[in-house]
């Protein structure tokens, strides 16, 4: 990334384009979730968009892997996408949400291993 790209943010535009082409390969309900997630995260991004990129990348990877597994998007994100997004960026309430993820992880495993 050169200075010009950094100043104009064109490196970020390129990355967003990358993200979008990955998102287009997702099933439709996943694509809709991706749009909602972006809409929720964007208000956070006015001056700090660059630091949002790895977070968006993490979500997209999560969507890709779970879609490939044939899970429903509801199962992956839960009902509260807004809360999910706040947790992603570590905003208020993130701690209790991370506890939820932790619980979800152990419950999913218990259920799937049938124990």
């Amino acid at each position, binding site marked *: 990334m050169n200075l010009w790209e950094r100043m104009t943010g064109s490196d970020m535009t390129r990355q967003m384009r990358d993200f979008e082409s990955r998102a287009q390969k997702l099933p439709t309900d996943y694509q809709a979730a991706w749009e909602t997630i972006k809409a929720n995260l964007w208000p956070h991004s006015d001056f700090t968009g660059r630091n949002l990129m790895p977070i968006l*990348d993490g979500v997209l990877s999560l969507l890709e*892997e779970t879609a490939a597994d044939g899970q429903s998007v509801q199962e992956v994100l839960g009902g509260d996408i807004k809360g999910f997004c706040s947790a992603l960026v*570590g905003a208020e309430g993130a701690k209790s949400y991370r506890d939820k*993820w932790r619980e979800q992880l152990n419950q999913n495993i218990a259920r799937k291993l049938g124990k």
Partner: protein
Amino acid sequence: MSIRDLIEGKKKWRAHMARVKALPRDYQLVYKEIQKYLFKVGPVELTEGTGLLDGIVELFEEGAAMGKGVLEVTGSDVAAFCDDLIKDSRTYADVYQESVNREVANAMNKVAKKTK
């Protein structure tokens, strides 16, 4: 600079997932849940190429080869295992919050200077 590119490049990512698929079913299930959890929590280490995910696969391959059950390897509290694993790593949420705080502080400084 996506997780997949940064971790290992696309080819390596595919090789990584192929190793996962070669694990016994129970190990695969647990691995995938762990991976999902880590994508959500977003430890910076995930993109630093330190082989966080490869390391887990290696641990699992060895455990499976010894005929152990997956929960015997991780313990029944898999989340605790994950958190232990990334205990020293900052998350992207941390990085993000730091940048927000910095920007807010800068903005406040500007206002403070103007009002002087």
